[in-house]
């Protein structure tokens, strides 16, 4: 009797519970997926289906007209579309790499080492998580103009590098690293920076990949809100801005704007899918437990 219990990995569960949880999952999944299916479907609708009454939810005769229209619309604009793409990628990539590196570098001492002022610094980080970004916009604007960051990409990139969310998340994960691992490295004569880079970072790979997802996604869409605040030059703006210009065109541009939304969506989702597979697989085998 006891041996059977021991061998069983999972405890008994009722099928009622299974059905209930599955139905819950299906209902929420439908609610979550529906608008996105709508975006994809509309992006491929020809104009007569977009303006049809009553409208169909799914596309009947899919076409690429919206994408070609979008291309024509954008190539007619004063700033070439590739410029917007370059701006968006530049902000997203530089910001993400910088944030992951610098936030992890700071998280390691906070999580694993003792030094004066540590508690105080971490308390401030936690408190700052509770501040809505809007609050700091006005005073940030003044700082930016004083530092000469206004109307450059750095106005968006630099604050993102120092955002407290990543530090907090990395610290939470790094705390789970066994001390024995770090001591072993120390005995081998590694410097702190070396321990961080060759021991800690490989072990917390799932954590910083998660951080890559958050940061990239935040910066990818940042052109809209933060960008319009600090960046005025047309040639420095991002795809998000270009999209909002198309959306402003009204009902006749529904098709191209849906196509643009779909294109804009694809990149973060791709990044997510690529990094997620490694997040989930390395997570259970990362050997972080003592």
């Amino acid at each position, binding site marked *: 009797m006891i041996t059977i219990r021991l061998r069983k990995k999972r405890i008994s569960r009722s099928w009622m519970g299974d059905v209930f949880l599955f139905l819950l999952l299906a209902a929420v999944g439908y609610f979550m997926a529906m608008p996105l299916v709508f975006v994809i479907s509309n992006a491929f609708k020809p104009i007569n289906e977009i303006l049809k009454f009553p*409208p169909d939810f799914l596309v009947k005769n899919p076409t690429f007209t919206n994408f070609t229209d979008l291309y024509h619309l954008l190539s007619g604009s004063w700033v070439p579309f590739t410029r917007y793409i370059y701006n968006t990628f530049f902000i997203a990539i530089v910001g993400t790499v910088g944030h992951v590196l610098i936030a992890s570098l700071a998280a390691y001492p906070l999580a694993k080492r003792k*030094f004066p002022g540590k508690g105080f610094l971490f308390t401030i980080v936690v408190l700052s998580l509770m501040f809505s970004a809007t609050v*700091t916009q006005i*005073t940030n604007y003044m700082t930016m103009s004083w530092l000469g960051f206004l109307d450059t990409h750095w106005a968006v990139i630099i604050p993102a590098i120092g955002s407290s969310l990543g530090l907090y998340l990395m610290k939470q994960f790094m705390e789970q690293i066994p001390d024995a691992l770090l001591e072993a490295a120390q005995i081998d004569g590694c410097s702190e920076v070396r321990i961080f880079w060759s021991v800690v970072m490989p072990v917390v790979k799932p954590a910083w990949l998660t951080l890559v997802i958050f940061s990239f996604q935040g910066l990818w869409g940042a052109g809209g809100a933060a960008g319009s605040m600090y960046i005025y030059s047309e040639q420095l703006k991002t795809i998000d801005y270009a999209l909002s210009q198309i959306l402003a065109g009204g009902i006749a541009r529904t098709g191209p704007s849906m196509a643009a*939304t779909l294109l804009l969506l694809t990149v973060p989702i791709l990044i997510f899918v690529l990094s997620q597979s490694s997040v989930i697989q390395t997570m259970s085998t990362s050997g972080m437990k003592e």
Partner: protein
Amino acid sequence: MIQLVKKSKLKLDSKTLRPRLNLKWKEVSKNKVLYAMIAPFFLIFFTFTVLPVCLSLLVSFTNFNMLEFPKWVGWRNYAQLFVRDDVFLIALKNTLIFAAITGPVSYIACFVLAWIINEFPPKIRAFATLVFYAPALSGSAFIVWTLLFSSDSYGYINAFLLKWHLILEPILWLKTPKYILPIIIIVQLWLSLGTSFLAFIAGLQGLDKTLFEAGAIDGIRNRWQELWFITLPSMRPMLMFGAVIQITASFGVAEVATALAGFPSVKYAGHTIVTHLMDYGSIRFEMGYASAIATVLFAMMLGSNLIVRRLLAKVGE
């Protein structure tokens, strides 16, 4: 080391202050590598987060229009906010209703969904995660809700309701006060399975499997007991993280509200504290007043965080 702790416990007087400072300095210089490691982050963090917040607190006690030097007015901004500003009271009410619904609902949904998904085989798990996380990933794609709720008969919700003869004429969804807040809540819920959801999934993945086996031997009978006595207590750091994020998000709603209901919305039905803040901060340039609004918002977030911290400490008891 022991000596150091003893000495630091001594009372401050002129004789001990100097050696104490010396010791402190020794300790600081011993750890200079660590300070060098945290320096880049904290330099940026202080410049773009701490400094603006402190400035904002200071400015909230002044009358400041960005052109003239700020004039100290004490608590006047706060008094005006609660006594004379009717629109602020509407915004406060909306934000509280909004936070009271979206905060707990999305927090619990994040955890429950992550928990269910966690039991699936890896391939299905990856797909389900994508479905739930995609809206939060999609950035400004929530704009599609304006098409769904658009006011004419081409709006999809209207069109379907008309087709099924549930309504006789199109409803002005985003122009009718009583519908505006519920619609914003729905869209925000759709967007809200984000950061904390992913953090929960990562946290669940990292749980120690032997704990569950030990629990089964100790007499845990069903999954609900397992959840309450093992999973939740071991997830506490992640739960805390999720709570902080979710509270900030549900009190800070503004973007969705302005994108859907316009700014200002009809009869201020979609007005929140942050839109009120934006109104005074970036349109009227009354910085002192805007900062006072921001401070009130911060106090609310801090208060609810403390309450949630208390509640989370009780988990699994």
